[in-house]
């Protein structure tokens, strides 16, 4: 009932394609993630679903309401947190929250228990102007404001961008709690590591192509080749050399190691080891690892 159904939505800005025939079905009470780099059309999709933009073609419904015809009803029932901090910087934390509560014809007191867990963290600063809050605090306040009218569906556009790692983890903990209250949540993020906290995710590519939709686990399992993490003393020359290696299918730098897939494995691993030794690399380790979301993403591209 409180699901979101998207059918063949396309959107262009002039000659730039933002979304290409996207179709998604998000179930009631699901925590659904849109994962993709900047320019993948995540914000455009959110704006279409929140009735702020009209799609060029295709149709969509939120809570069973049509995004074009039932504009007013949808606006009563969704909560939206834009990617950019969109609260009043010259109003205090408390004033912002009570303003947005009254815009939705409710009060802080009415829905306090819904936002309590989040609000207690910013309450010590309730008399501070919103513009003077730190990044993480701002996002928590914005989430409170988007939640204060107890929406059925919550749209969060890159809520953790520009937020420190600790606050990011806290933020996702809050989303878990909200999900347990039965709120359908659509969240977008460019961070692949956050994808595993969603029930299901859609991988979006630049210019709005949807690569795959599955549970994070399912997406990881769909990675059907053995994956190796390779380390050595000189990491940068190692990347060059691995890419030059004849048996290499793909190789990318991933933090402290290089993730490598091979054309044909088993025998190649031993061959690769001697190849690298020959090239003068020391402390070479090659270990077999599980693919992460990011590996899948790069692989699908």
């Amino acid at each position, binding site marked *: 009932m409180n699901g979101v159904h998207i059918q063949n939505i396309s959107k262009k800005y002039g000659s730039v394609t933002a979304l290409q025939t996207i179709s998604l079905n998000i179930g009631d009470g699901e925590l659904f993630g849109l994962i993709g780099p900047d320019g993948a059309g995540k914000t455009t999709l959110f*704006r279409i679903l*929140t*009735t*702020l*933009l*009209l799609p060029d073609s295709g149709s969509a419904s939120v809570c069973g309401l049509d995004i074009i015809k039932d*504009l*007013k009803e949808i*606006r*009563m029932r*969704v909560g*939206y947190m*834009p990617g*950019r*901090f*969109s*609260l*009043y*910087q*010259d*109003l205090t934390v408390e*004033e912002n929250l*009570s*303003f*947005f509560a*009254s*815009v*939705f*014809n409710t009060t802080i007191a009415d829905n306090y228990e819904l936002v309590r867990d989040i609000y207690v963290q910013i309450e010590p600063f309730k008399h501070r102007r919103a513009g003077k809050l730190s990044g993480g605090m701002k996002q928590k306040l914005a989430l409170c*404001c*988007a939640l204060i009218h107890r929406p059925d569906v919550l749209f969060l556009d890159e809520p953790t961008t520009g937020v420190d790692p600790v606050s990011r983890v806290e933020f996702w903990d809050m989303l878990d709690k909200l999900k347990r209250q039965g709120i359908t949540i659509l969240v977008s993020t460019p961070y692949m590591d956050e994808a595993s906290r969603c029930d299901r995710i859609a991988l979006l590519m630049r210019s709005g192509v949807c690569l795959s939709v599955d549970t994070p686990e399912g997406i990881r399992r769909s990675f059907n080749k053995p994956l190796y993490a390779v380390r050595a003393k000189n990491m940068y020359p190692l990347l060059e050399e691995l890419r030059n290696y004849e048996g290499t299918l793909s190789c990318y730098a991933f933090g402290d190691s290089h993730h490598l897939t091979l054309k044909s494995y088993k025998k190649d691993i031993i061959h690769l080891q001697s190849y690298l030794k020959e090239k003068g690399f020391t402390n070479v380790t090659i270990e077999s690892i599980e693919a992460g979301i990011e590996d899948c993403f790069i692989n699908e591209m």
Partner: protein
Amino acid sequence: MRQFGSFIRKEFYHILRDKRTMTILLLMPIILIILFGYAITTEIKQSPFVVLDNSFDTRTNQLIEQLQASEYFTLYSKVSNVEEIENLFRQGKIRMALVVSPTNDLQILADATDPNEAAALIQYAQAILSSQLSTFNFQLSTHLLYNPQMKSAYNFVPGVMGLILILICAMMTSVGIVKEKEMGTMEVLLVSPMKPVYIVLAKATPYLLISLINIITILLLSRFLLEVPIVGSIWLVLGLSVLYALVALSLGLLISTITDTQQAAMLISWVVLMLPVMLLSGMIFPIENMPWILQIISDIVPAKWYIIAVKDVMIKGLGAETILKEIGILALMFVTLTALSVKRFKIRL
């Protein structure tokens, strides 16, 4: 209604917390009145003049005394021949000369390099000397209506009111609405049950209030500082001002629907609103002297009609029935502009 009330409260927070803008908004009318009243004046004060007296009559001295007694003229010297007058004019030492012939003919000479000033000087002198002139062979035929001392304040007080109201209502409202777009808060407001018309009304209300405060400030200053009497009904003046402010608000709203940045809104407000008010409303330059094309353009400047109506009421003391045309035009402008901007107001991004 509670929705609307808290929106207005929010607007007041914005305005009151922006101390600099607030100060400018409240001080601007005072500064403008003082500037126009004392610095930028088209009045002539302490103009030096000379007298060439060929009649050797005591009445000439009475003339000089009367001119001297006014604040507009000071005697530069007495001269004995016409060449001296010419020299003094050329050197720019004097602005006017009185020549009394042996047969008691009175001639007033003025330096017409600035024709407006010359005309004004002669009119001033005639007005001042009117009681004396009958004894000379000189018949005074000019009679100045309503502004016998030709006080420019009579002209610019309604002008400043027209200017301030446009500035605050149109510019501040358009900038205020566009700011919401620029800051991204409009995005959140649109995805809410708040009706767009409430958003706009709530934006406009505080500025309407501030502009009323400004009108009262201007009226007080002009009454007690510049001594411009308010002859007609003060309520009619205030009512007219509210109507004009509504026109200005709807103009600001229209501007906000066609711009996306505060800078653009500000620029358009200046070019489309401020300049026409200053140049085409009759506040500074008389409309009658403009080429016909500018006269036609001046008809669509709301300030023109407001200034005409306020002058009629405030200075001539006329009643509402005489300014029905102006009221009608302003009301029509308000309805048209509001309809246009409501139609243009985007309910989406």
